């Protein structure tokens, strides 16, 4: 057990260093791209003079030497302060620059992204767990081959394309489901209407109907990848001696699959999901943009492509939060692998996978 703990502790420490590196890199990349961040707080001045811009830059503190700014940035990070969003910032003569806190923005957006990813993953698991073992038991049949062909099609479909087609066909032409917008689960009706551009809605039913298409588009790509993996995995489980024992004791095909094969591939699915969180967040970005969901991805696009340039505090906040989620998920995956297969505990040099999607 202490081995597990120190293993977890080491992974956490590496993760923390990695996150700090990510934040610093984001800071410096942002810094290296010249922009007048003061434009954010100029408010309604339409054609600002050079002096006005410089004054605004000064108020925001972005005209100081790079190392001083970086020192401040690191100090704030250490205290857990992510600062304020520049997009929402205004200058008030008595209180200085005020605006919405990045932590609040990121938390609200994370709830949306969480809804998309969690629902999508549940849908995925609900489809893969029965289907994978079933196909393995019918290996080589026409159904098996057809579904494998379909998975090749899904693997080759960009989640963006799937989302666009589902939105256009199911959401718009047929009008069966809402084609965009987000409704908060806890019915504060209207609270999110500005961000989502949808009239007042809220509560579990609205929440689910608005997310059904995003969940579907999310799970298609992963469904294909997982189905292949789980099918192979199930085939090898089906060749194990204990399956023969179960059959010899008179278990039906169905019992063998549901009592023996599904439980043994469940662990594999859980580990795969934990390891794919980074990719999942990358996929969620496209889905949020297409379906107009005010999640982390869409917030990132707004911060990257706003009228006055990069909203650095928000960008750093989102990179940090997604990075932390990925590090923690990877840690969970490593620990789960350790629980399932103790041999993996000491090796553990699989490398942290933190890319936001290959696609």
């Amino acid at each position, binding site marked *: 057990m202490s081995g597990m703990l120190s293993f977890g502790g080491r992974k956490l420490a590496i993760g923390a260093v990695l996150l700090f590196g990510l934040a610093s890199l984001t800071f410096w990349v942002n810094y290296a791209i010249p922009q007048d961040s003061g434009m954010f707080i100029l408010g309604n001045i339409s054609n600002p003079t050079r002096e006005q811009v410089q004054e605004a830059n000064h108020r925001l503190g972005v005209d100081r030497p790079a190392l001083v700014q970086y020192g401040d940035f690191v100090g704030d990070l250490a205290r857990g302060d992510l600062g304020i969003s520049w997009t929402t910032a205004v200058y008030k003569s008595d209180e200085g620059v005020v605006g919405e806190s990045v932590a609040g923005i990121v938390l609200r957006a994370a709830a949306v992204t969480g809804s998309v990813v969690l629902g999508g993953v549940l849908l995925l698991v609900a489809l893969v767990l029965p289907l994978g073992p079933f196909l393995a038991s019918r290996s080589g049949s026409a159904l098996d081959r057809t579904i494998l062909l379909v998975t090749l099609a899904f693997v080759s479909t960009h989640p*963006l*394309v799937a989302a666009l087609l589902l939105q256009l066909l199911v959401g718009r032409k047929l009008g069966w489901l809402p084609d965009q917008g987000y409704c908060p689960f806890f019915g504060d009706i209207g609270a999110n209407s500005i961000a989502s551009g949808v009239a007042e809605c809220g509560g579990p039913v609205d929440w689910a109907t608005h997310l059904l298409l995003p969940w579907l588009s999310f799970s298609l790509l992963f469904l294909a990848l997982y189905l292949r993996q789980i099918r192979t995995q199930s085939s090898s489980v089906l060749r194990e001696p204990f399956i023969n024992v179960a059959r010899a004791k008179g278990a039906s095909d169905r019992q063998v699959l549901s009592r023996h094969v599904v439980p043994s591939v469940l662990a594999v699915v859980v580990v795969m999901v934990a390891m794919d969180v980074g990719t999942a967040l990358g996929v969620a*970005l496209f889905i949020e943009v297409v379906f107009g969901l005010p999640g982390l991805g869409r917030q*990132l696009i707004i911060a990257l*492509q706003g009228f006055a340039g*990069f909203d650095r505090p928000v960008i750093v906040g989102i990179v940090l939060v997604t*990075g932390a989620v990925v590090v923690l998920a990877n840690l969970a995956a490593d620990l789960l692998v350790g629980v399932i297969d103790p041999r993996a505990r000491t090796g553990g040099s699989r490398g942290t996978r933190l890319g936001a*999607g290959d696609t």
Partner: protein
Amino acid sequence: MSMPGVHHDESASGAQIAVPVRSPRAIAFARLRRDRAAVIAFYLAAAVLLACFVGAPVLSQILGHGPNDLFPYAVDDNLRPVGPLSRVPDTHAALVDDYGEIVPPATGTGKTLLILGADGALGRDLFLRLLYGGQVSIEVGLLAAVIALLIGVSLGALAGMLGGVVDAGVSRLSEIVMAFPILFLLVLVGASSLGSRLQDITLGVLNEGVFSVALLIGLFTWFYPARLVRTQLLSLRRSEFVDASLVSGAGRAWIFRKHLLPHLGPSLVTWGTLAVATGILLEIGVTFLNAGVRMPTASWGRILADTWGSPLAPSRYLPAAVSLWPTIFASLAIFIAVVALHEIGEALQRVFGTERPR
């Protein structure tokens, strides 16, 4: 790919049995030719390449218009584009009456054929844009794979051959690059002025915008081939044929080129094929997020984005003004190209017996 296998032709036994000697490359090729799905995929990929790079200019000549020509009469009053196989008045300027209403074109205006219809409110030829857009998307995929392979193979070879500090350095560097969310970086750089400057680099042969997107993708995907090369070299380095070369006085660079590089071929070719598909998909994503190939240059991502709007200002959905065709045909084009590449990649894996490179 010439593996140091033992060939049986030099067995000095008296009986001369004519066993055809085939190189591993020939064996792999023969296996590939027996793989029906792979052959179909090869023809499909070749057809896409041919259509985009040869078919596009030829068709443009035959039809008499280009991918960026506007046909105001290819959209109706609601700006809804015409569907497939439409003949529209061959004029780039709409006639407007005194009240600002669009009136029919002058009599005697010729007609021109839009094979898949128009692409949207601007009334451009969808089919031509798909073909020319395919050029851009495929160029991005190919160039990104080449850049990633160049960087990856060199760094991986250095790490695997020299070991020690170099190996540690390359490994750490690849872990850092691996940890960085590539999509975020693509959008960040693409949206900046640096991205704008990179847009104009064409190297004389490429389409506009290709180089910048491909360079960025290549710069952030090289760690896959680097790790692939490094791991294989670490085990190959200790093999007897390398020792034999070393004691015979061969230099490390020569050994790498003559003895080791051929071993890496299969896995690199497999990775490269799948990387082209990944590059095509990444281009679509980045362009859709407004940070890749810019208007009016057609690319598959651009066509999808043009119909849908931009991330910060999605176009409003007006049922009377929206046609399904542009989205469906663009999706289909992407699908055909990527399915073919994936199937070829998987067939290569089966043939070479390489692991799926991740």
